[in-house]
């Protein structure tokens, strides 16, 4: 298998010693092909093509007891999203303070055209308009990447005074995927003002009226009663 055939003709073995072959020597490439495909198979099987990416999550520091420097969110800017395990692919949300009657808790789907994304798009319209403008400027080369990185966090863009504030609350049945999906929707909608906390009991009570799930079975551990 591995012999080198010199001289083109089939008689390499019977060639007389010392006689120079005419023409280019022919090399049997088959073992090389074997080797190449072996390596190819190895790399295809061991490698991962889509590299995992990293998204950043910044959680707020717990408040000190005597900390007075807290920002209160005006009711009209607050939107609370309640996650309870995505039963029926629906998530629930309410605006402002927790309403006493369950009717004010609305449900919404994760559908990219009609659901949460569209709601955020409408609520956050001013920020998105400013951010689209910024993106266009960046693509046209009017601002550098450093400005493109730092500007969104300023008052003119994502931190506008009247930008909505989203509070994502998770219940005992919520999965990691549910939470990340919602956070991702917020990121798509250019929302930077959001927080992630445990659901509270009053919210669960109202939610259970809406969903028919007994809240006691679903309370996450360590919920404030």
């Amino acid at each position: 298998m591995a012999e080198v055939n010199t001289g083109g003709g089939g008689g390499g073995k019977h060639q007389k010693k010392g006689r120079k072959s005419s023409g280019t020597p022919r090399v049997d490439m088959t073992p090389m092909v074997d080797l190449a495909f072996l390596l190819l198979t190895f790399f295809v099987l061991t490698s991962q093509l889509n590299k995992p990416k990293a998204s950043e999550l910044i959680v707020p520091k717990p408040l000190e007891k005597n900390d007075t420097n807290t920002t209160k969110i005006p009711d009209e800017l607050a939107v609370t999203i309640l996650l309870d395990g995505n039963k029926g692919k629906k998530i629930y949300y309410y605006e402002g303070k927790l309403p006493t009657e369950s009717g004010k808790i609305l449900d919404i789907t994760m559908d990219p055209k009609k659901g949460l994304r569209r709601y955020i798009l409408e609520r956050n319209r001013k920020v998105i308009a400013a951010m689209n403008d910024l993106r266009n400027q960046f693509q046209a080369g009017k601002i550098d990447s450093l400005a493109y990185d730092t500007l969104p966090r300023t008052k003119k863009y994502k931190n506008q005074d009247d930008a909505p504030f989203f509070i994502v609350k998770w219940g005992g049945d919520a999965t990691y995927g549910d939470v990340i999906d919602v956070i991702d929707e917020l990121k798509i909608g250019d929302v930077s003002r959001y927080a992630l906390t445990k659901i509270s009991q009053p919210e669960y009570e109202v939610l259970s009226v809406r969903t028919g799930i007994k809240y006691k079975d679903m309370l996450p551990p360590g919920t404030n009663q």
Partner: protein
Amino acid sequence: MPKIKVPRSSPSLDMTPMVDLAFLLVTFFMLTATMRTPEPVTVDTPSSIDAKEVPKNTMLITIDTLGRVFYNIENPTVRRIALENMAKRFEVKFTEEQLVKFSNMQSFGVSVKELPAYIDGDASKRKVMDAATKGIPIDTADQDKSELRFWIYNGRLEAKRFSDENPKLQLKPLRIAIKADNKSAYKKIDFVLDEFKRQEIFNFNLITNLEANPNEKKSK
């Protein structure tokens, strides 16, 4: 009719283009792909629009669908010293050979007591242990028994010491990343986040898959 001559020897093919092609593909895969690191559990991460690369020098906490916690820290030197600290704290003896072996391992999800057997075990033994384990113990009632707490603490402490002692390497500060499955219960992840909060880790990474960003499509 004249007889058709059948050539006696097998026809020879010119393999050169095939070799060219094969090596081209080999080169492509070598250059584009990163090695898949062996992991004790398969985790199906959620997708996100964030396109940042996974940072170098990380401490990785993996949480699978059952809520079991696995721990990994990249730097072998730090791994080894962290294990030595853990061995002292939980009074488990490790041989020099085990320490060396451990420093070259990947993610693990067993308690310190089970670790010697896990390190000595071959691939199939480890597989059995990975399937049976409950993950790195987290004790919410008794903080002193929570092994995850001390793994995170020791990992950070020794990583800091290592980069201080080797300024020439110019290591980036240790990043902490969470890799969890789509279907993991969020309350299990919250146990880990609670631990982060107690150790004043407020800024960390979540490992995700890439998903197309609708905003960028629009502006193009």
